[in-house]
């Protein structure tokens, strides 16, 4: 296997969304997730010389991120004594319903579902690596961020038909990659 190299100038474009999705399900807070991602990149820069090239860039960055998340858990855990207790008051009209509501909430999203979704999300982002970077970016804007066709066309100076060709290729590649890596396992 070829020795992997680090390209920090591409980190944000290539891995920011991946690391962010990995983090957000674990810390459940946008600001904190964002901070952890940037800390990960900075820590990565500092320890670049320790990178042996045995793992992929992504695996290496995830390993750093995992440590950052654990540190974060430790920090909030030690601050636990001071934690504030929040009580949600419900309006009296729905009194008596609350038990069922809470049961519903629980069955709605089990931890397992969340993990499954998270892995799926990461699989999708990983599959996007196999297509050209600019095309992946356009696909993400359109599909994940829901930016409209006109805005994307203006930003990238392409025509709508260019856009649809890119979307078509991306969808095909993504579907094939997911068939091979996700649905079969």
């Amino acid at each position, binding site marked *: 296997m070829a020795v992997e190299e680090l390209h*920090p*100038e591409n*980190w*944000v*474009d290539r891995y*920011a*969304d991946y690391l*962010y*999705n990995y983090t*957000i399900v674990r810390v459940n807070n946008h600001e904190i997730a*964002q901070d952890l*991602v*940037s800390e990960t*990149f*900075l820590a990565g*820069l500092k320890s670049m010389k320790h990178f042996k090239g045995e793992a992929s860039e992504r695996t290496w960055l995830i390993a750093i991120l995992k440590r950052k998340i654990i540190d974060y858990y430790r920090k909030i855990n030690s601050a636990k004594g001071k934690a504030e207790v929040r009580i949600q008051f419900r309006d009296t009209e729905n009194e008596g319903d609350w038990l069922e509501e809470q049961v519903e909430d629980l069955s709605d999203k089990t931890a397992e579902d969340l993990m499954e*979704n998270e892995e*799926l*999300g990461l699989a*999708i*982002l990983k599959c996007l690596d196999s297509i050209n970077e600019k095309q992946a970016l356009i696909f*993400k804007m*359109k*599909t*994940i*961020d829901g930016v409209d*066709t006109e805005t994307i066309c203006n930003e990238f100076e392409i025509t709508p038909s260019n856009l*649809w060709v890119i*979307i*078509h290729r991306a*969808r095909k590649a*993504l*579907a094939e990659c*997911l068939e091979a890596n*996700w649905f079969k396992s």
Partner: protein
Amino acid sequence: MKIKIPCDEANHICDKSQYREATFWEKLRLNIHLLYCKACRKYTAQNQRLTQTIQDAHLKSLPDKEKELLKERLHQELNK
């Protein structure tokens, strides 16, 4: 207006409809095409499955502004 459309057009409409950008007439023509075209039926099924999968994944992306800031910061660190 022609009712029969070629496969590439059918696929194009199918892609657009994944983003709710296909018109009623386009969808009608696509559906007529699908009646007799097995290959496009397969593509449409695959495409819909992909849309559903992406929805199920609840993907989020880091806002562009944050990415730019992050890039700048990394760039500064690199040139230190």
